[in-house]
């Protein structure tokens, strides 16, 4: 089984971050980068499929500047077999531009499955996987939480609000991964050493035209401070009045 996993290098959004001077991007100072969360789950899913199949390879692909090679090597350290770096000075915001470059690389690659994370944790567009599937003319199942492959067909589960949906699809296919397939493994120390010797191919990214641009990024406005109306039972009538007339929740 031959599986491609598309991974994005993103800043860790759990850490404190600032908006850069132009207001269109995050301030890179102090950011720590890693594989986007769901993309990590996709790498894990790919590795498990190949392991349970007993043969095959997992190829990790990423678009961006040279720094993405570190992220690719992390996936190699987890156990991916080889990596492709599609070189681009910047990662465009427009999912179609990215999907075009990925489809150009992956279309003729002979992959049985192309995996993506459900979304990149920085831009949260949820578009690249489905768009790449469309460009390659492949079926696409999104945000799956379980995946089995047998006899050239795939079965996937998706979590809906209060229900589970099971889908079947022919291969090759594009699948985007939610949590639930198994936490991404840590690169072992031997894995980290081995990653340095695994193939990492660099090619220019054939990005499509970018029609979308970010206008401005802003933090949400501060919440207005709370107000103390009074204390004890005496304050209750006023509280009720304000809940009715001002907050309009009663």
């Amino acid at each position, binding site marked *: 089984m031959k599986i491609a996993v598309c991974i994005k290098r993103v800043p860790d959004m*759990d*850490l404190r971050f600032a908006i850069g001077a132009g207001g269109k991007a995050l301030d890179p100072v102090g950011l*720590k980068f890693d594989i986007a969360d769901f993309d990590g789950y996709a790498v894990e899913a790919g590795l498990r499929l190949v392991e349970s199949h007993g043969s095959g390879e997992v190829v990790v692909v990423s678009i961006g500047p040279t720094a993405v090679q*570190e992220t690719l*090597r*992390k996936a190699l*350290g987890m156990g991916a077999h080889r990596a492709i770096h599609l070189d681009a000075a910047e990662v465009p915001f427009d999912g179609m531009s990215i999907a075009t470059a990925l489809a150009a690389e992956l279309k003729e690659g002979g992959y049985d499955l192309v995996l993506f994370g459900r979304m990149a944790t920085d831009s949260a567009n949820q578009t690249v996987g489905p768009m790449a599937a469309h460009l390659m003319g492949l079926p696409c199942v999104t945000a799956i939480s379980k995946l089995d492959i047998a006899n050239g067909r795939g079965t996937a589960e998706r979590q809906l609000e209060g229900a589970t949906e099971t889908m079947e699809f022919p291969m090759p296919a594009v699948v985007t991964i939610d949590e639930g397939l198994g936490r991404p493994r*840590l*690169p*072992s*120390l*031997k894995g*980290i*050493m081995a990653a*340095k010797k695994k193939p990492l191919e660099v090619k220019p990214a054939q990005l499509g035209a970018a029609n979308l641009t970010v206008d401005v990024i802003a933090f949400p406005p501060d919440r207005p401070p709370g107000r103390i109306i009074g204390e004890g039972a005496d304050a209750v009538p006023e509280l009720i009045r304000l809940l009715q007339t001002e907050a309009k929740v009663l």
Partner: protein
Amino acid sequence: MANAFVGVDFYDVDSLLSEEERAVRDTVRAWVEEHLMPIIGDAYIEGEFPKQLIPGMADLGFFGANLPEEYGCAGLNNVSYGLIMQELERGDSGIRSFASVQGALVMYPIFAFGSEEQKKHWLPRLASGEEIGCFGLTEPDYGSNPGGMITTAKETTDGWLLNGAKMWITNGSQATVSIIWAKTGAIDDTKSIRGFIVPASTKGYTAKDQKGKLSLRASDTSEIVLQDCLVPKDAILPKSGGIKSPLMCLTQARYGIAWGGIGAAMACYDEALSYSKERIMFGKPIGQTQLQQSRLAEMLTEITKAQLLTLQLGRLKDRGTMTPDQVSLAKRNNINMACEAAREARRLLGANGILAEYHSMRHMANLESVYTYEGTHDMHTLILGQAVTGLPAF
């Protein structure tokens, strides 16, 4: 839940590390966060080493990680090895002790003084955690002066007959194999000290837990008795010879301990810093008072100095020029620094600081053992004194 630990890096020391070194550090850091932090408080109170962690540590390659791949090890450089110790001790000194003993005090002597057969047999099994090792040097009456040991090994027609007692042995009760140091000649002949690989199943070998510890409670510390304990001729480490052999092992372990001290200090500083921003007293965060800022500034300064000094020590070790005296300086400085940081963090936390739910007091108590073992702080002072004056004061 508190945010995941991100380290302390005021001087961009990260930029002095290679990608591989950072990757190693990140793996251990993530493992500690996920597997160790949730259970360490309870393990400490129960006074139990968390054995269930051993397979996971072995799978990721934490044991003897700077030894060669041909023996089942990761083949990392010494800076990466140090970063593993740093991150483990960020969690708990007892867990770091386990890894130090397994790697630097059991695998290293087999690697450095063992025959090829011994290396091929033992190293992969120790790396995989299938065998757990301990290092028996200290005796009830010979601590800082291990050369005085009275454990003996007499050569007989059947093998080596060991007699004596070892004390304060980390991993002692759970070890399946022990590196025992004993005199093969006259009792005042330190040159006759040799190392032996002694399986715990050997007749005449017994280990028993030392009870009542108020420090390193999540680590197993034991007394070992050797009574007419007969091991085969090939149990001796052929290239070991004299007190300098166990001291070479201690240099390896102390090197890792110097890194470990930074980890413990970072954990305490991190806890103190976040507490100081959240704890409101007299209408403002205690972090907004000069007294607490002074504590934090002091900790940050000392951690940063230790980071730079220890990284350079690692670079010297990787270059092959590191001296034992340089290791003494780092062990002495860093563990003392960590003891101070832990105590100050504990104090900053007020009453909460005495709870196991927080980490500073556990580190503070643990570090008192680390201050004493692997050469007491005093002994390293005397080693440095001798190094600069040429005059031994011990």
